[in-house]
């Protein structure tokens, strides 16, 4: 469960990036939609303490991101749009093993990492250079490395924007099958409609919070009318 209470984010120059948001997210699948620069990513970064609210609070399973950041980040995985910066080690096996350090016995890191890669269809590339993987494979690896930590919540910032249709479908299916609560910022309106709850963000304001179809229709109407900034 994610609780935001009057969570606000100001830029260093005082501009408001996210206006006060109060919401309790308990749904299994939550989609966040909005135009580029609307504040979606800023809102998502509040959810695992990558960004702290300048006022208000954000709690995940009862833990405050401001005071219990490390504990929150153990519970909340984050997947970025561009997987390149998320891949921290030279090979997929080593990258997943890095996530597993401290969670499994040291000598079992490699076997456990291979098991994770098999779940994501990357076992054949376990010892290849991660740099040489395709964009879709890199995003899968980024997902695998984050999910290897066993988060209860997964926050995804436009995880399929850079992917072609085949990989987008594959990643969407993977995310749909997860037991974890998933909060996704997305431009894929079909995926947003399939969510349990949709937040529409416009210029830092959450202008809709609730029914997916109504939220997507509102977003489309605002975009076509040129009202979204």
């Amino acid at each position: 469960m994610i609780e935001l209470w009057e969570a606000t984010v100001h830029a260093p120059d005082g501009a408001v990036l996210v206006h006060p948001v109060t919401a309790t997210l308990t749904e299994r699948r939550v989609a966040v939609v909005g135009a580029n620069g609307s504040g979606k990513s800023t809102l998502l970064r509040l959810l695992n303490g990558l960004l702290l609210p300048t006022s208000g609070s954000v709690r995940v399973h009862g833990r405050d991101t401001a005071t219990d950041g490390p504990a929150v980040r153990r519970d909340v995985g984050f997947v970025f749009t561009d997987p390149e910066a998320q891949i921290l080690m030279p090979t997929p096996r080593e990258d997943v093993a890095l996530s597993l350090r401290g969670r499994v016995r040291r000598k079992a890191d490699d076997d456990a990492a291979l098991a994770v890669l098999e779940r994501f269809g990357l076992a054949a590339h376990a010892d290849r250079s991660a740099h040489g993987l395709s964009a879709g494979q890199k995003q899968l690896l980024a997902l695998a490395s984050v999910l290897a930590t066993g988060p209860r919540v997964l926050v995804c910032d436009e995880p399929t924007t850079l992917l072609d249709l085949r990989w987008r479908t594959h990643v969407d299916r993977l995310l749909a099958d997860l037991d974890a609560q998933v909060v996704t910022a997305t431009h894929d309106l079909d995926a947003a409609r399939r969510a349990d709850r949709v937040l529409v963000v416009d210029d830092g304001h959450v202008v809709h919070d609730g029914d997916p179809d109504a939220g997507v229709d509102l977003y489309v109407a605002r975009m076509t009318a040129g009202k979204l900034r």
Partner: protein
Amino acid sequence: MSAGARLLALLGVGVLAGLPAHALPVPVWLGLALPLGCAVSLALAWRAPLAVVVRRAVPLALLALVLAVVHVVAGTPLRGVEVALDLVAVAVVAHAVTLTTSATAMLDALERGALRLGLSPGRAWTISLAVSLMLRAIPVLGGVAASAREAARARGAERRLGAIAGSATVRAVGHAQRTGEALAARGLADQPS
């Protein structure tokens, strides 16, 4: 040879390369050749793919050549030869280490070494992770520089080296920031348990 031993060997070649050739208790010509000789011997002993080592060492070797020319012009040719050979030696052994040692093994070895030096577990972890990330960043930053050049070429601005360097630097800083976020996102930026 363990990862820790290889890293110590890398350090050893680095120290040897840093010593002036005339300060070593061997003939000067031997003192000049010793670091590179050690580096190549280690690369062979570790069965590093020499063609790959040489290919990766070429950019630094070109820099070494430029420095050697500067010394020749300045009237210190022997010093130029020494600097060039030392740079190539360090490049050869560094690439030999990264080509024959897994990043995980290096991470473990660095962490153990840091603990033996009396650092706290948190600090030891931070240092070893920092070194591993630096190694991971090398091909990524190469890609960043290539992208910046490509973008400049697409605009016919391939001769504007300042603009390319500036763009590459900004992108590299962006990559560093995103890496920090990725570490935080996996809970790795916090103290290890």
